């Protein structure tokens, strides 16, 4: 059952990822990315990261992609959106990189040992793991923020800077351009 779910989600993710790059029309690309985000969320559920799956749908599909759709429709793009001239080089490089990564993963045999897995979760006597099992997924993540407090503060600062930067950049008359 778990294997079937994984292969379904993986197949749809790969297909829609390729479609995002292949579609000529940017709106189709954004819709394909939307489908991909939902299936990544489904993959997270099979990995017992339920809270992240919800956040994936709310933040990515709900906020980020709506922003993309706004901009695509605002700019009213023409349809003559062709590929770069070096399309052959790009795809060739991608295939070479993919072959390298698959070779590395298969030669390392990482994670194929049965010792790492959910079976070890119950068997392990580590108090941290036991805490994760007894508490929920969301609560376990919340407790981790006591450990990663400083990165959390830095993340909030990044968001503040991005917000101010976006407001400033989207104003008229910025970048030394004349007002239309």
């Amino acid at each position, binding site marked *: 059952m*778990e294997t079937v779910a*994984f292969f379904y989600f*993986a197949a749809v993710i*790969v297909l829609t*990822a*390729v479609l*995002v*790059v292949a579609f000529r029309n940017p709106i189709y690309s954004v819709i394909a*990315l939307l489908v991909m*985000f939902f299936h*990544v969320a489904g*993959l997270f559920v099979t990995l017992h*990261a339920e*809270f*992240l799956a919800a*956040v994936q749908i709310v933040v*990515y599909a709900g*906020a980020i992609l709506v922003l*993309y759709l706004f*901009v695509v429709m605002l*700019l009213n*793009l023409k349809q003559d*959106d062709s*590929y*770069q001239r070096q399309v052959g*080089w*790009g*795809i060739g*490089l*991608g295939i070479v990189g*993919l072959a390298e*990564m*698959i070779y590395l*993963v298969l030669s390392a*045999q*990482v*994670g*194929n040992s049965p010792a*790492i*897995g*959910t079976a070890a*979760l119950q068997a392990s006597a*580590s108090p941290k793991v036991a805490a994760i099992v007894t508490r929920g*997924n969301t609560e376990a*993540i919340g*407790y*981790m923020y006591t*450990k*990663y407090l400083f990165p959390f503060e830095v*993340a909030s600062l*990044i*968001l503040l800077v*991005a917000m101010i*930067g*976006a407001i400033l*950049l*989207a104003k*008229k008359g*910025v*970048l030394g351009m004349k007002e239309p």
Partner: protein
Amino acid sequence: MVPLSYYMVLSAIVFLTGFVGVLIRRNIIILLLSIELMLNATNINFVAFSHYLNDVSGQVFVFFTLTVAAAEVAVGLAIIIALYRGKATVNVEDLNLMKW
């Protein structure tokens, strides 16, 4: 039980799709979408390792990736709007102001 290497191969495929997208597309919005693909590939890796190593830290780092993605989208789209206002194009080959 799905082996961890399957998730890594899936993540590699999605990441390289985004990589190829950055290389071959001319529309700057699709370039940003391709960067989103790469960030999602790292998220898949983080969550898979978090599950197989029984450590929630990986899921916390997905949140930081999410923060960076949101900031990148906000600033990137603002830059695209400013560029479009000035040059009326989103084709990266027409944006050669800083080329010498």
